């Protein structure tokens, strides 16, 4: 590891004294440790300070000099924004002068005669360290692009306000650019940076008239902690106008999320809420402002509770796996072909929690793999149990989430499941959404190839909801294509939708894979799909997802049909 000491910049010291002997003596003391330059009067010193302002570590300044004395130099440097950060140590033998110089902003003093070399060296070193430390802090405190606080400093100051200024009720505001990465990609990073600078200017202009602090967290994420505003839309519009005026590119659209102050809510939480609110207007072309409200608060509390309760839910078997049958409709009568395992949560206090509530939540925080592992195990166990009970192996498909793709132990985990329950690999079908394919195409294709190599069958779920190109489809290794239920919903009423179903079926034929139509609820839908050539049907028409004990009569009935057929 490189130590910070090794990253020291070269240190340049300016010695200012009208007497050559004094300059030389001081230079002799310091020359082994620093680069030295000299000035023989105040005027020359000022010129050199300006010339070397980016390189100077410290100035050692005699106070009594002809032409321009050291006090005047101090005064000029301290009143110059570009120079005032350069530390100055005054050289003097007079106590009164020391005090005056320190009052004028000198960092320290060295007394004449220069007979205490160690003290002189120590003082110079200490002042340079302090100054460099301060410069580092200043650099870390502000985002160079916008001049706003950096994230760490922003939260430090926001927390101070929260702890020590309890009378200040301040709202959290998050401001983003819609599709900022596209703005950068299309117009170049420099342009993107200019837009960020304009937003920073707009925020600073706002804070000039309103109490608050602001930060650019990273990328296009801005945060403002400010006194409550009556009209946040007006604030958003003002900043948007600045961006529009300064940019020749139309369509740079800002969005804003606001979390109003709430008793006892710390800044980090408040900004999480503002960020969540801001996220809700992402891609919304009508509204660009969202205020975090009670409904969002209730949802947040519910989400937090579900996150906290998941481990217990697994241990206490509150999670239930339901099964929905898939029927082969190209036979008469239709034959039970397989089932899909679907999770349900029977929460002891909240009752039945919809998977539509907890699955997106766990997908977003990575806990979905806990749910998936539970479902995989339950499904494998159930396949084995039914095989034992009815003498048939009913294949069951389970979901493979995006996070599972990155699990290096995925293959071993699935392999051990089929081994443990003595299953054929084809009995446990794996459903992968089309969007997961397209997001990580290369990685996904490699994984799927490996899984298929082991004997697992892969179903592409929700086909038609993603953005697969025809070219990609031909290279995607799949065994079954599951048509998104949106296609099926309106096929009776909409000829266009029905024609789209035909297109999907054509694609499946091209890929030489069977198609499962999900969400089939009526006989009319069933007949249309059957006639169009759809192989497998899943939906309420045959059965809603049911617990294993309610599914068993379907297996019994299937065995009956089989017996009748053989007879």
């Amino acid at each position, binding site marked *: 590891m490189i130590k910070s000491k090794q990253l020291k910049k070269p240190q340049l010291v300016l010695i200012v*004294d*009208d*007497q*050559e*002997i*004094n300059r*030389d*003596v001081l230079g*002799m003391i310091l020359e082994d440790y620093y680069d030295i330059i000299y000035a023989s009067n105040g005027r020359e010193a000022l010129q050199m300070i300006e010339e070397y302002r980016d390189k100077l570590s410290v100035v050692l300044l*005699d106070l*009594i*000099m*002809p032409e321009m004395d050291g006090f005047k130099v101090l005064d000029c440097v301290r009143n110059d924004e570009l120079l005032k950060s350069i530390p100055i140590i005054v050289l003097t*033998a*007079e106590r*009164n002068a020391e005090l005056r110089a320190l009052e004028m902003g000198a960092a320290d003093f060295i007394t*004449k*005669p*220069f*007979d*205490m*070399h160690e003290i002189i060296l120590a003082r110079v070193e200490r002042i340079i360290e302090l100054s460099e430390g301060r410069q580092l802090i200043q650099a870390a405190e502000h985002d160079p692009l916008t001049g706003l606080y950096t994230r760490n400093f922003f939260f430090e100051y926001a927390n101070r306000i929260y702890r020590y200024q309890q009378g200040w009720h301040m709202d959290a505001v998050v401001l983003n650019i819609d599709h900022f990465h596209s703005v950068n990609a299309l117009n170049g990073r420099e342009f993107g940076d200019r837009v960020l600078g304009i937003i920073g200017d707009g925020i600073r202009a706002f804070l000039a008239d309103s109490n608050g602090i602001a930060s650019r967290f990273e990328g296009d994420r801005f945060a403002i902690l400010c006194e409550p505003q009556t009209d946040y839309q007006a604030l958003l519009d003002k900043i948007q106008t600045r961006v529009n005026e300064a940019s020749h590119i139309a369509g740079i659209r800002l969005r804003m999320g606001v979390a109003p102050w709430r008793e006892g809510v710390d800044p980090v939480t408040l900004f999480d809420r503002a960020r969540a609110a801001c996220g809700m207007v992402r891609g919304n072309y009508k509204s660009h402002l969202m205020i975090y409200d009670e409904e969002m608060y209730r949802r947040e509390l519910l989400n937090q509770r579900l996150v906290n309760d998941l481990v217990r839910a697994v241990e206490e078997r509150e999670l239930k796996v339901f099964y929905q049958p898939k029927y082969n409709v190209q036979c008469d009568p239709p034959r039970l072909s397989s089932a899909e395992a679907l999770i349900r949560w029977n929460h002891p206090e909240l009752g039945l929690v919809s998977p539509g509530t907890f699955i997106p939540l766990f997908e977003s925080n990575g806990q979905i793999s806990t749910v998936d592992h539970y479902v995989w195990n339950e499904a494998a166990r159930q396949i084995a149990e039914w095989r034992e009970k009815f003498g048939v192996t009913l294949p069951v498909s389970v979901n493979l989430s995006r996070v599972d793709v990155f699990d290096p132990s995925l293959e071993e985990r699935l392999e051990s499941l089929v081994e443990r329950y003595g299953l054929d690999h084809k009995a446990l079908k794996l459903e992968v959404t089309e969007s997961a394919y397209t997001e990580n195409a290369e990685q996904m294709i490699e994984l799927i190839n490996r899984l298929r190599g082991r004997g697992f069958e892969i179903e592409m779920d929700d086909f038609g909801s993603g953005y697969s190109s025809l070219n990609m489809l031909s290279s995607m290794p799949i065994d079954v294509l599951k048509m998104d239920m949106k296609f099926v919903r309106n096929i009776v009423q909409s000829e266009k939708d029905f024609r789209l179903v035909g297109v999907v079926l054509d694609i499946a034929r091209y890929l030489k894979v069977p198609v499962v139509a999900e969400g089939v609820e009526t006989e009319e839908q069933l007949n249309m799909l059957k006639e169009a050539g759809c192989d497998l049907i899943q939906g309420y028409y045959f059965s809603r997802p049911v617990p294993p004990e309610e599914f068993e009569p379907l297996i019994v009935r299937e065995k009956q049909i089989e017996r009748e057929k053989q007879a």
Partner: protein
Amino acid sequence: MTIQELYTKIGGNYDQAVRVMKKDKLIDKYVRKLKNSNVGDMLAEAGETMDAVKLFESAHAMKGVCSNLGLEGLANAADEITEEYRAGNPRTLSDDAVKEKLAALLRRYRQTVQCITEYEESN
């Protein structure tokens, strides 16, 4: 003449010079520089006009240089004039008294320079 002998001759504090410059070689270098420095001339000029600011600045310069060289007698005499003319300090001496002290200081300074010349010639 050695550098120590020179210091004895001019009433300087050799030990103090060593504290500042550490090595005889450097003491030698800067003592020789004193001979060519303008501190004496500046002070003499200031004395001719009795300009308070110039008297203060030039006496202050001599004090600073001499104290670094361990020439305490000169430094102390220069300090008296410095304090007499420091802004804010009350005047304690008459102009004539200052002139007398100044003349004595310059005399001593010239003697010191003379001794340094002899030292240079002997080396």
